[in-house]
């Protein structure tokens, strides 16, 4: 798929988000361009997951807009967001623990366009993660953390999204497995999938991404290419510990 990496597929425009009376996002704006890997980094509690949940319509912004492929989506329902092609691999995997791996994958492909190609996509996911094929009859909740993360990513891919958002996929994984997961994200990105990656593994993700934003206390404070941010004194001090 030819990618220009210029045109924005998703634009978040000045959103404020609150839990009840407690506001946690303040005028957050950023854009994700077609075909790129965009990284959003930030410390614990910065508001990264809140941002992704708002894009997925689990939360609604009290101000601002979210535009996907030219269409405002901030008032849509979660299932409508999925149908437009925006999926999420949530923080902490959130698999359906009492369902088998295969049932979890089936749950990933409920949107009409994904359901139509279910069998093919599942074969592709099993090729990406041969381990999941071996474990397909096992209840997801009984698998190791790494296997569960593979299943969660596989389930996200089953939606055949145009934009896939990952919320801290390296959480709790060994360095080796983290490497493997990041390689995989690069691979599906190279096949044409636009990626929004939220991470605390700052060094690694800034090195592999096209562009990045830094979120602090609910506000975007910095943006630039991965290399620029790796060289930025503030980022080096606050996130890389150098």
């Amino acid at each position, binding site marked *: 798929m030819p990618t220009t990496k210029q045109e924005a597929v998703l634009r978040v425009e000045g959103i404020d988000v609150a839990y009840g009376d407690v506001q946690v996002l303040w005028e957050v704006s950023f854009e994700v361009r077609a075909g790129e890997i965009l990284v959003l980094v930030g410390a614990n509690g910065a508001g990264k997951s809140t941002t992704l949940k708002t894009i997925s319509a689990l939360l609604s912004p009290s101000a601002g807009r979210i535009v996907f492929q030219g269409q405002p989506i901030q008032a849509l329902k979660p*299932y409508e967001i999925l149908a437009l092609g925006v999926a999420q691999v949530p923080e902490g995997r*959130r698999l*359906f*623990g009492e369902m088998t791996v295969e049932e979890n994958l089936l749950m990933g492909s409920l949107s009409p366009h994904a359901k139509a190609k279910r069998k093919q996509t599942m074969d592709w996911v099993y090729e990406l993660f041969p381990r999941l094929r071996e474990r397909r009859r096992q209840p997801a909740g009984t698998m190791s953390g790494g296997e569960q993360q593979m299943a969660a990513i596989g389930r996200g891919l089953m939606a055949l999204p145009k934009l896939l958002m990952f919320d801290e996929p390296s959480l709790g994984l060994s360095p080796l497995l983290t490497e493997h997961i990041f390689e995989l994200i690069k691979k599906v990105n190279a096949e044409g999938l636009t990626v929004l990656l939220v991470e605390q593994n700052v060094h690694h993700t800034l090195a592999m991404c096209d562009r990045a934003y830094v979120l602090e206390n609910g506000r975007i404070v910095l943006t630039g290419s991965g290399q620029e941010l790796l060289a930025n004194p503030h980022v080096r001090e606050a996130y890389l510990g150098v």
Partner: protein
Amino acid sequence: MDVLLQTLVAGLLKGGLYALIGIGMTLIMGVMGIINLAHGQMMMVAMYLTFVLFTFLGLDPYFSLLLTMPALFLLGAAVQRWALNPLLKVESLLPQNQVLMTVGIGMVLTEVMRFIFSSNYQSLKTGYSDATFFLGQISFSVPLTIAFLVACLFTSLMFWFLLKTDLGRSIRAVAQDAEAAQLMGVNAERIRTITMGLGAALVAAAGTLLLPVYYLFPDIGKPFTTKAFIITILGGLGSTVGAILGGVTLGLAEALGSTFLGMQYEDLVGLVIFILVLLFLPGGFKRLTKV
């Protein structure tokens, strides 16, 4: 020996119906996280519907299933859609407040039926109401045996539905993690509405099947709500296999109690078992089955 065997058979047959009642309640418990305290009252409505269809149109109760189940599906779905889902949107209300709403709905259903049919006992006598057949020395009531078989059929269909269809899997997904299910594109509100409808349709089936061997008055809902509650707790809140075990256990306990202690102790035995399970197997049969 024969008496014991006879009692066990009677208990098992009744247990099949109880399982049907319990599975509906359990589904609702699993997905909505609440006990539906209008469950027995919904069954009572289905029984009156069966009664009317028989008395005025001469419809056989087994045929009426085709009407009472869809009718109660609609009633259950409407209750969820217009009375319970709106409560979930009020942030200042705890989800448990839905339970109070179900209590109110149960009362309304009871009083509406009392208004229409008065408090008089009704019954429905079919040609087979008292029919029995024998296997060896053991007698089987024809309507209860049919009820048992139909209950087994619906239970199997329900399992197939929950395990093998997208809608069934979505119901299980919402029960396990509603937010994650929404991230998969499940419309959780619609799933709640459908689940309440299914629960009501299942308990409607139990009511319709029971009517030929039972009697009917507006307050009959409440004891069945209690039974459904006991079955659900016995099964381990939200466990479908547990609900079947819970239903059969309650059926057997009641049968043994009424045979060996006397009719008036039927309900007491069920309650004693209930308390014993709470004390010694908290979490119900789910602890044994893990399903």
